[in-house]
């Protein structure tokens, strides 16, 4: 891959400035999980002017609903879910300070515009490589919405969690450019 970059959470503008689409990044630090149902609840809280269950500023949300952990393991299989289902919610979370999202599949124009405006990035993890992803997750705990089961919000401690930069802060889009390059 073109280049490997290391990212530490919470994310800083300076680290994001240099990211190019297609870069391989390895993330270390704390990230948060949320899927459709949790996104709806987070956005409802923002719209009601209430506090979120975690400080979202500079953070990364990973779109994942992991499988249950075997005894002695921090988490089960944990690959990304499809991101477009989060498109209606993401701009609101980006405006609230979210700096990064991890998922699979392309984002719509509203999300890409919001990423430019808020200097945020979207990172692609490999869908269906869920055991590989789980190896980089060292700790996991449910911090909100336990009733949602696999869709609860979890705080994950990750080490060198592998992703590919799909959208950087300048509005470049690997889903668009990559496909154009190999189209016949």
């Amino acid at each position, binding site marked *: 891959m073109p280049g490997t970059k290391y990212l530490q959470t919470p994310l800083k503008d300076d680290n994001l400035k240099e990211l190019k689409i297609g870069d391989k990044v390895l993330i270390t630090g704390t990230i948060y999980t949320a899927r459709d149902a949790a996104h709806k609840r987070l956005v409802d809280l923002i719209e009601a002017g209430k506090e979120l269950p975690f400080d979202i500023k500079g953070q990364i949300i990973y779109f994942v*609903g992991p*499988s249950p*952990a075997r005894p002695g393991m921090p988490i089960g*299989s944990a690959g990304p879910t499809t991101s477009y289902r989060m498109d209606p919610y993401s701009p609101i979370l980006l405006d609230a300070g979210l700096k990064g999202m991890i998922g699979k599949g392309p984002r719509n124009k509203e999300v890409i515009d919001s990423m430019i405006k808020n200097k945020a990035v979207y990172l692609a993890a490999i869908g269906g*490589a869920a055991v590989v992803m789980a190896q980089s997750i060292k700790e996991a705990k449910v911090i909100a919405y336990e009733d949602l089961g*696999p869709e609860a919000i979890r705080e994950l401690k990750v080490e060198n969690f592998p992703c590919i930069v799909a959208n950087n802060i300048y509005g470049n889009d*690997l889903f668009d450019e990559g496909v154009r390059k*190999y189209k016949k």
Partner: protein
Amino acid sequence: MREIDVKEIIPIVRKLCIDASIYIGKDVVEKLKEFQEKEESPIAKEIISIIFENQRLAVEKQMPLCQDTGVAVFFIELGQDVHLVGGDFYEAINEGVRQGYKEGYLRKSMVDDPIIERKNTRDNTPALIYLDIVPGDEIKITLAAKGGGSENMSEVKMMKAADGIEGVIDFVVDRVKRSGGNPCPPIIVGVGLGGDFEQSALLAKKSLLRSLTEKNSGTKWAKVEDEILERVNNLGIGPQGLGGRTTAIAVNILHKACHIACMPVAVNIQCHVHRHKTAVI
């Protein structure tokens, strides 16, 4: 006539659920290797290598290949000389699913009400069960565990005879194009032609059960499959939608008779974590 106690089915279904989630089919591996060799994009090549690493780790750690361990879809061929005793057949299948998803540490992905409540049933039931009565005194149970991401990219279209085979091919290719990176490519494209509205969809799903290394037994359909595969891979979508020559590794078609006014076409998209396992009782 052969008597079979439905309680015998429970541990068999339980094992099918666990095994399907961990062990990928040899045909999928073979096809991925074939396409990786031809792949032009370095990112795409690396993604396929990571998929192989994932398949290896799943077995080593006895963890499901994908966190989305799917809706449990069953295709059952019930021999007409079988007499089922000892309880409710459908409940036995569901109990097997309940046990398999719990003991295999598989994700429970079913909600009871599709729209308003969407409350997780917490045991991955109900299973979806399709039953065919066939000659003989055996029960053949095939589980196809289907993930939501690829299922969401599927579609049924009621076409007209005037659209012809070219219209059908255009629709299938366009369906893959509109799916982009969403269904976790490399994908397998299941196509159901004919029947009626709902049967075309079922044919599309059933077509995915054919081994990816086995050619369609109908020569004309094998040619259509090849044409769709070539056109789909010319789209440039590539693994995960990040660009490349490997968008699909196979196209499988199943067809049936239909009404003179109709030409139903269904596309069921399957991700590279293509899970299905069969047991015979």
